[in-house]
């Protein structure tokens, strides 16, 4: 009996009136965990009952602690009839199971009912006493930390990054198993909510077990999804990256060091370009090529598609031996783990990482985007086929119509395994042994399911993959040879044996290695990447009509369409990238959604101009009928328009690449500025001469042939994308390339739109236009709504498309708007050095993990092209402005020790503020939620609300603040249903209220854990169904994120300097805005 769960029900408030006669409620509470139930007394006739119950104690296995949610049901007592349920609260007690996270859950939780929504609040205190018995860790995995964040969490350092963990569990869906489908909506909704809560607990426990077997202690980049397969069941699956993490802040160790040494550490990375290729980019395989060539490059393997073609992994020229060595080591590292005699070794055969940002030095090279899709038929439960082979064999067939019993998770396992296998082989073809920024998704329509996986093929530094023993000469040499800011761009594959025809040029940065001309990746922009100008959101949108069909015919039709869609999406992306005068895409996410009669494709990515890559060529339009004069004229008109757009975009995104590259001192290869075209076949030899011929001139224009109206449409649609209004930027990555002076105001939001297509004569073009308009209008609306935040940037813009019905298209967007300081943005041309400095100030923990390397080495020279700004930055390195230096002092280390002090100051500040204003309401401060209280400092009558502010953001950080503690993962699933749709304000009113309620419940849980923010927040699912004729609607929402405690950097300063708080106060009050 390894755990005792203790629950106390304190009070309720704002309860609904359950007794019409008295306008009051006789409420009591049932507390249920596992099969044990306790009840409080009935508190008669009150809407604000004070139960103040005893401690209810549950003695349970830690396995149950992990799986089961705590269920709290509030009921209205009725003497004569059955008690009426008011609503429920599910509390995931997982955060209490690891020592560093929360110790108590205490606070006001919204009481939620699936029919009525939130109905009042209940104050609950939950504690767990764990009896640590290490032998018991057979079935439970208490103590493994989970993070949604797709980078190493801010107050930890990665000792080892073990690799991929995955698991899935399958169950029947209560919605469909209800006897004869006669269900009360409430009963079936609650059964579903409870089941999914249970399944995700179980899933997390199982993944935790795998992590323990790998000797890790945490899962980073944990992504859990639900597949509602309808009649064939409910799948909950999760992937993540197992790591061994060390907590960074031990106050005693760092406190004395905070002055001089930490500063040194901070500065040293600037002048230390070696190894910090933190994030990778992908190489887009389809390069400056003519229209006809495009098709060549494109490999159409049904149903999976790889952007980058095939290639062998033999050593390249210069960095060749290194690369080979590195590759060998990486592989051996990976294989060693894969081959280890553990039970779950099979799963570790996939060298995948769900991370999108990496510790410095982790990422060495990036190959390109790899993706695989597979169309599957979901089977009815009674179909017994293939059960025989279920044991250990897996099917690696690309397309497998054979039915499996869906009760068996192995069926789904096998499906995913084959997709992963394919991804792995694609990565290998690119000369890479690992896949980073890896993610998986599904799209289901009736019985057809598209499984998708994508990631970025990469070469990793083996140092992190094994127990620290490998660090040796290889690493040293490696670092010497990899200049910062461009290392990750260098091709990992062999240029003689290129997987696809592409233009390779010498890296503009180091001049030593080859780079592709365009790079596509699914990860975030590495912090040390040298970027010119700003980035922007680039989207490709596409619809394809499909005939309605059944089963296999349907699946075949879909799989036939898929490659064409991928191809077009890719072409669109490429065109738009060129139009923006940029040369790389980060955070690429391609979503294919299947509906009854159409397929939708939506690709989002953030375009940037990487200094290391060649300047992109323009877009050239070629007409097919050269004789027609007016046609010619039209073409030239279009061409002019395109050129104008490119020029305008260059200005807009401040893309002014340095023109002169020859003057680089010590540039090894003088680059002749010839306009020559590289058309390299595999047989072509690559001696020095040809290499010198490589160039990055403007001649490599991208040619668009206009041979029919479709093509014309495409060109037009290229030009219809309106840039965001001035003062707005948008990207779908964590940080906006080119902006680094964030201020602290953030606003996270979710926006949902559903349009109904007029069913008459739908054509692909009309469909495309509708879809395009939908997305563009949505963006325009966002810009308008957030206009008060200008200058600001929409970060982590995440579009999700679904096709709930025949003629309905639903687009859901979640993003965060962050303000930035415009003035500062203008003066600081982002140089590599400055960016690093900035970064150092915000998360120098990452850098602190290599204090020895960073401090002891001498300063290698900057291998930057000597553009003016670089020179400036280099010179400024020696004398970093005092202000910047001040911000870069590391306070995290002693934050813990000082936290009580901070509290004290906050309290004082609060009392002072309170004293100065007239308040009439007396409110006692609820202790766990008081955290955010001190921020509410305005407006007389409302100044003392008990509701703490909880920020939410899809990013892994909070601008201007330091995350001091991770409290645990938030993973919540809600169903809301109504039978009075009109009365609730129609579909919009219904969904608006529901999403607001979901936010509220997330915030309440975070506050109860003692946190004040959710980072890496994501709305993974928002399934909306309506039946207006019956006045009904139903919606399912699944959200997750990491609950954290953050402290404003300005407040940290208050602590560090014994100066009166007054001097620092303005800076922290200024940006105080709730989100």
């Amino acid at each position: 009996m390894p755990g005792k769960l203790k629950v106390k029900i304190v009070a309720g408030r704002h309860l609904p009136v359950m007794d019409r006669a008295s306008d009051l409620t006789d409420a009591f509470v049932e507390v249920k965990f596992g099969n044990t139930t306790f009840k409080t007394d009935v508190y008669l006739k009150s809407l604000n009952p004070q139960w103040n119950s005893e401690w209810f104690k549950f003695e349970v296995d830690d396995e149950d602690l992990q799986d089961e949610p705590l269920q709290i049901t509030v009921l209205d007592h009725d003497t004569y009839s059955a008690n009426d349920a008011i609503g429920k609260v599910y509390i995931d007690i997982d955060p209490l199971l690891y020592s560093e996270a929360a110790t108590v859950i205490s606070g006001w939780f919204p009481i939620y009912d699936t029919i009525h929504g939130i109905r009042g609040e209940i104050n609950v205190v939950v504690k767990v006493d764990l009896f640590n018995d290490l032998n018991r860790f057979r079935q439970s995995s208490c103590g493994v930390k989970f993070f949604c964040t797709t980078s190493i969490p801010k107050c930890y350092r990665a000792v080892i990054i073990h690799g991929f963990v995955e698991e899935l569990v399958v169950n029947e869906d209560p919605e469909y198993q209800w006897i004869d489908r006669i269900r009360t909506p409430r009963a079936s909704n609650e059964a579903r909510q409870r089941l999914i809560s249970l399944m995700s607990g179980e899933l997390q426990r199982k993944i935790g077990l795998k992590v323990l077997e790998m000797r890790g202690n945490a899962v980073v980049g944990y992504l859990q999804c639900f597949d509602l397969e309808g009649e064939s069941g409910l799948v909950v699956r999760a992937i993540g990256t197992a790591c061994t993490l060390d907590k960074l802040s031990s106050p005693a160790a760092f406190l004395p060091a905070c002055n001089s040494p930490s500063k040194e550490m901070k500065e040293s990375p600037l002048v230390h370009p070696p190894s910090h290729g933190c994030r990778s980019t992908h190489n887009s395989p389809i390069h400056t090529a003519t229209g006809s060539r495009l098709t060549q490059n494109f490999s159409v393997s049904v149903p999976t598609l790889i952007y980058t073609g095939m290639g062998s992994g033999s050593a390249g020229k210069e960095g060749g031996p290194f690369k080979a060595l590195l590759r060998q080591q990486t592989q051996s590292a990976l294989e060693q783990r894969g081959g280890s005699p553990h039970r779950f070794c099979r799963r570790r055969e996939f060298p995948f990482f769900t991370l999108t940002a990496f510790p410095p030095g982790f990422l060495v090279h990036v190959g390109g985007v790899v993706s695989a899709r597979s169309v599957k038929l979901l089977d009815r439960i009674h179909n017994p086929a293939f059960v025989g082979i279920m044991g250990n064999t897996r099917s690696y067939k690309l397309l497998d119509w054979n039915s499996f019993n869906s009760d068996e998770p192995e069926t789904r396992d096998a499906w995913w395994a084959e997709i992963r296998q394919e991804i792995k082989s694609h990565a290998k073809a690119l000369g890479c042994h690992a896949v980073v920024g890896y993610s998986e998704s599904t799209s289901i329509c009736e019985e057809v399911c598209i499984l998708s996986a994508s990631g970025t093929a990469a070469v990793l530094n083996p140092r992190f993959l094994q127990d620290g023993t490998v660090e040796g000469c290889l690493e040293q040499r490696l670092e010497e040879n990899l200049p910062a800011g461009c290392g990750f761009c260098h091709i990992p594959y062999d240029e003689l044996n290129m997987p696809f025809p592409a233009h390779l040029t010498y890296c503009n940065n180091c001049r030593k290695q080859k780079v592709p001309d365009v790079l596509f990746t699914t990860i975030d922009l590495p912090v040390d990447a040298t970027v010119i100008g700003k980035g922007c959101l680039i989207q490709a949108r596409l619809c394809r009509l499909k005939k309605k069909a059944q089963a296999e015919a349907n699946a075949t039709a879909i799989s036939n369409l898929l490659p064409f869609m991928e191809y077009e999406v890719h072409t669109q992306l490429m065109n738009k990238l060129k139009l923006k005068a940029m040369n790389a895409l980060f955070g690429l996410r391609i979503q294919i959604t299947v509906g009854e009669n159409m397929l939708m494709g939506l690709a989002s990515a953030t375009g940037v101009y990487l200094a290391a890559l060649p300047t992109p060529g323009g877009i050239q339009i070629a007409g097919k009928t050269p004789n027609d004069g007016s046609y010619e004229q039209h073409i030239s008109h279009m061409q002019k328009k395109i050129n104008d757009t490119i020029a305008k975009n260059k200005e807009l995104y401040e893309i002014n690449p340095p023109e002169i590259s020859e003057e680089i001192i010590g540039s090894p290869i003088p680059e002749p500025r010839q306009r020559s075209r590289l058309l390299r076949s595999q047989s072509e030899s690559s001696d020095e001469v040809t290499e010198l011929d490589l160039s990055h001139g403007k001649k490599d224009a991208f040619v668009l042939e206009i041979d029919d109206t479709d093509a014309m449409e495409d060109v037009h649609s290229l030009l219809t994308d309106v840039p965001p209004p001035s003062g707005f930027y948008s990207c779908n990555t964590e940080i906006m390339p080119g902006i680094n002076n964030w201020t602290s105001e953030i606003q996270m939001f979710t926006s949902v739109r559903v349009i109904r297509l007029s069913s008459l004569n739908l054509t692909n073009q009309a469909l495309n236009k509708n879809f395009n308009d939908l997305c563009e209008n949505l963006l325009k609306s966002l810009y308008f709504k957030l206009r008060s935040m200008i200058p600001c940037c929409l970060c982590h813009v995440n579009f999700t498309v679904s096709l709930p019905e025949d003629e309905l298209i639903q687009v859901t967007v979640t993003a965060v708007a962050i303000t930035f300081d415009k003035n500062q943005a203008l003066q600081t041309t982002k140089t590599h050095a400055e960016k690093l400095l900035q970064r150092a100030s915000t998360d120098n923990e990452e850098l602190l993990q290599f204090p020895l390397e960073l401090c002891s080495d001498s300063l290698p020279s900057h291998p930057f092209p000597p553009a003016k700004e670089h020179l400036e930055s280099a010179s400024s390195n020696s004398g970093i402005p005092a202000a910047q230096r001040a911000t870069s002092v590391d306070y995290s280390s002693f934050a813990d020790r000082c936290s009580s002090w901070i509290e004290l100051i906050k309290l004082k500040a609060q009392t002072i503020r309170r004293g100065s204003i007239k308040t009439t309401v007396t409110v006692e401060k609820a202790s766990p939620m008081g955290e955010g209280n001190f921020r509410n400092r305005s407006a007389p009558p409302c100044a003392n609300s008990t509701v703490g502010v909880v920020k939410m953001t899809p990013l892994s950080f909070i601008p201007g603040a330091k995350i001091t503690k991770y409290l645990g993962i938030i993973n919540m699933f809600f169903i809301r249903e109504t039978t009075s749709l009109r009365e609730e304000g129609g579909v919009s009113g219904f969904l608006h209220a529901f999403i607001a309620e979901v936010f509220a419940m997330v915030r309440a849980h975070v506050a109860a854990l003692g946190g004040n923010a959710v980072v890496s927040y994501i709305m993974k699912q928002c399934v909306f169904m309506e039946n207006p004729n019956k006045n009904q609607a139903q919606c399912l929402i699944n959200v997750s994120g990491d609950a954290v405690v953050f402290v404003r950097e300005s407040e940290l300063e208050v602590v560090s300097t014994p100066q009166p708080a007054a001097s620092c106060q303005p800076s922290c009050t200024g940006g105080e805005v709730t989100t």
Partner: protein
Amino acid sequence: MTSELDIFVGNTTLIDEDVYRLWLDGYSVSDAVALRVRSGILEQTGATAAVLQSDTMDHYRTFHMLERLLHAPPKLLHQLIFQIPPSRQALLIERYYAFDEAFVREVLGKKLSKGTKKDLDDISTKTGITLKSCRRQFDNFKRVFKVVEEMRGSLVDNIQQHFLLSDRLARDYAAIVFFANNRFETGKKKLQYLSFGDFAFCAELMIQNWTLGAVDSQVDDMDMDLDKEFLQDLKELKVLVADKDLLDLHKSLVCTALRGKLGVFSEMEANFKNLSRGLVNVAAKLTHNKDVRDLFVDLVEKVSCSVGCPLTPSWPVPGLYQCWMLPWTHSSWNPAAPTTGH
């Protein structure tokens, strides 16, 4: 292509002050959009009418959801569904409870009943304020009235505590509640020139000096009901007019107290006798409910007529009232009434 569903939900609830005002003023979504278009917002932001429509809808929906909470403002503070910065919460509440001068003059002193509510369309037509807005304002009055009636303690404090209004607005509501409770007639043509501010000023003084609460702070309804005993005692004031010596003494005391403080001092001094007689006559009748209701009508009719000059804004009821009451409140001398404390 028709938009079926279109929503935007922020973690911090977005409040657009301009749209909030339009909503409070009772405009429909389409009217609000038209008004916003006219304000030139499209040109400023480069947005389209469709964007504006969707934005307005969003805000209206939010306000609609917030309205339930605004009916009990402390709930707005404690609720968890909308995360709104405190300054914005205060703004929402303050604006929601704000009222139009034109409207309040129409219903001031009327019974806040269903009957009055039915007349709102007439008021709407007369004042040009939308019916929706009239209803909101009326319901606000009524709600505040219901909550604070039969409550102990200071009326203003009670209102402030239960509705979190600013001091100024709470005082206005206290006046409205006080007038509604005592049903003072304010709608007569003769009283039209008086502003709500004038009445509110009177109400405040009356609450301070004439109500039960002025004597005992532990009674229910203490600031709302007039002190019957006090009204009874006012009869005794007749001596001030009847007795020549007392009249002179009263005059000298009032004049000393008001010299230099009143713009119309000389007129007051010249007409003191008539003035005093008028006031005392009105005061003596206040034992009848009907006469209490007509207090302001009588003051204007009898007092100002007896003085021979109509009460003008520079010689308003409050001024009158003040000068008349001053000797009882500010001097220790007290001829007849045992109401010195008032």
